[in-house]
């Protein structure tokens, strides 16, 4: 029988390859290789190749699987990829469908930890300049840890043992498992938001010891950022001494274990009591010294002669006063004597001039002149009197009214008051007033003209 050459369809070939692969390869295998051409699609799926010196193997990792990968795969990284081989018929290639990816040599978590530390350090989250000082004498402390487990008791005991007067507030949070980091971060933000009312001075975030996986929440970015963003200082107290987490780097202070939280958060009460005693001694001592010094000063002052013999000042002054008094009297006496001498001398001078005799002469002379003046004046006055009399007589003679003495009279019209000088000045019936020499008046009436 002639064998006809079979013609296959593409789909058939692909199917056959698929079956062949399924039969000849383990359903699940682990492949070692170097990552190359790693692409993390927006869909969440990852596409990359694993390669060694001789060739490459295309790989796919679905988003649901990649979620569990804690580290960041990078080109060139040596990894162990676990999955199954299958044929991508649409693309005509075989691929390794990876469901687990691990770095070779070091643990996945360890690598993720190192990567996270590098990343956040580069951003400056660990820098000292951002670290807030832990208050020396806190009075309200917030504790974030699991409600179960020994950590909460360790933290509380370590604090109460050293500084029992502080108020403790407990905010229970999950410290491992899915979503723990987010919950702790949310708790930190919640507390910060409410701190005006809560009034916490410092926070302690921690948990007991465990594996890297158990502690993983404290290496996650969301928690690191929440610690960084906390306005209240945060102390991390995670795991055993040897465990160092990202939270420890970013916190404002680190307690190596929950048991050491007290040492970092609060002072030692006994020590502080001792300090108070020494302050008290200093205060008392200094004040006593000051008082003593003041007393000594006072004593010195009292001991001075001023206080011992206060009147001596007065006596000294009196003595001086007496001295001055005497000097003044002496000086005055001298002045007085001098003045007397001067007076005597002047008196003698005056006497020599014989002023009384001069005065008498002059008085006589004056009297003489006085008399002559009197005589002269009398003569002048007499002369004037004569002249006056003559003039007066002449004047009297000219007085119009003197004419009246010779028998004349003055007649006026009573009505008009005018002098009657001619016959026209009067009418029949007019009244007339006549003034006589003795100044009497006659009233008459005109009866006939």
């Amino acid at each position, binding site marked *: 029988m002639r064998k006809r050459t079979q013609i296959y369809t593409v789909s058939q070939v692909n199917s056959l390859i698929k079956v062949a692969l399924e039969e000849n390869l383990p359903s699940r295998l682990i492949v070692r290789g170097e990552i190359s051409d790693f692409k993390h699609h927006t869909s969440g799926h990852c596409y990359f190749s694993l390669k060694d010196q001789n060739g490459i193997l295309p790989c796919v990792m679905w988003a649901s699987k990649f979620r569990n990968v804690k580290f960041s795969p990078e080109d060139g990284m040596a990894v162990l990829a676990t999955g199954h081989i299958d044929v991508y018929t649409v693309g005509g290639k075989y691929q390794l469908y990876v469901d687990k990816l691990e770095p070779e040599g070091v643990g996945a978590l360890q690598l993720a930890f190192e990567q996270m530390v590098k990343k956040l350090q580069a951003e400056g989250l660990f820098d000292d300049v951002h670290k807030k000082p832990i208050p020396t004498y806190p009075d309200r402390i917030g504790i974030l840890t699991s409600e179960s487990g020994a950590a909460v008791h360790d933290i509380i005991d370590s604090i109460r043992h050293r500084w029992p*007067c502080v108020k403790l507030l407990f905010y229970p949070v999950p410290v491992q498992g899915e979503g723990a980091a987010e919950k702790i971060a949310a708790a930190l933000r919640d507390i910060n938001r409410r701190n005006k009312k809560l009034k916490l001075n410092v926070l302690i975030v921690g948990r007991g010891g465990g594996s890297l996986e158990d502690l993983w929440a404290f290496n996650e970015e969301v928690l690191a950022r929440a610690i960084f963003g906390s306005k209240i200082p945060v102390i991390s107290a995670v795991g055993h001494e040897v465990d160092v987490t990202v939270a420890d780097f970013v916190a404002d202070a680190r307690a190596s274990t929950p048991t050491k939280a007290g040492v970092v958060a609060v002072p030692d009460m006994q020590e502080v009591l001792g300090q108070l005693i020494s302050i008290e001694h200093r205060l008392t001592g200094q*004040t006593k010294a*000051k008082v003593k010094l003041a007393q000594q000063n006072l004593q010195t002052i009292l001991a001075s002669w001023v206080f011992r013999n206060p009147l001596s000042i007065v006596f000294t002054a009196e003595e001086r006063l007496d001295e001055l008094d005497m000097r003044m009297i002496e000086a005055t006496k001298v002045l007085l004597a001098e003045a007397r001498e001067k007076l005597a001398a002047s008196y003698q001078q005056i006497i020599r001039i014989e002023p009384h005799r001069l005065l008498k002469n002059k008085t006589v002379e004056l009297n003489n002149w006085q008399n002559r003046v009197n005589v002269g004046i009398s003569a002048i006055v007499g002369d004037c009197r004569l002249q006056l009399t003559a003039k007066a007589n002449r004047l009297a003679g000219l007085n119009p009214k003197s004419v009246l003495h010779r028998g004349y009279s003055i007649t006026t019209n009573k009505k008009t008051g005018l002098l009657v000088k001619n016959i026209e000045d009067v009418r029949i019936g007019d009244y007339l007033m006549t003034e006589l020499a003795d100044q009497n008046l006659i009233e008459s009436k005109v009866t006939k003209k």
Partner: protein
Amino acid sequence: MAGKKQKDDLGELSFEDSIKELTNIVSKIEQGQIPLQDSLQQYEKGMALIKHCRTILNKAEKRIEKITREEASEDEIPDKNK
């Protein structure tokens, strides 16, 4: 009374602030710049502060308050015994 008012003020003072004030007072007196009358006043204030600090320290807190998310008030629970 001046003395009584001082005591009332001290009642509110935190430990941190009390120690700060105390340190102030002691250095002032040690420097010797203040007159005698003032040093005596400061001494009294200092002793009151020391007493206040001791009172705070000797008050041992037994309770632990529990906070939960988004609650306006705080519940109190007694201290957990080991």
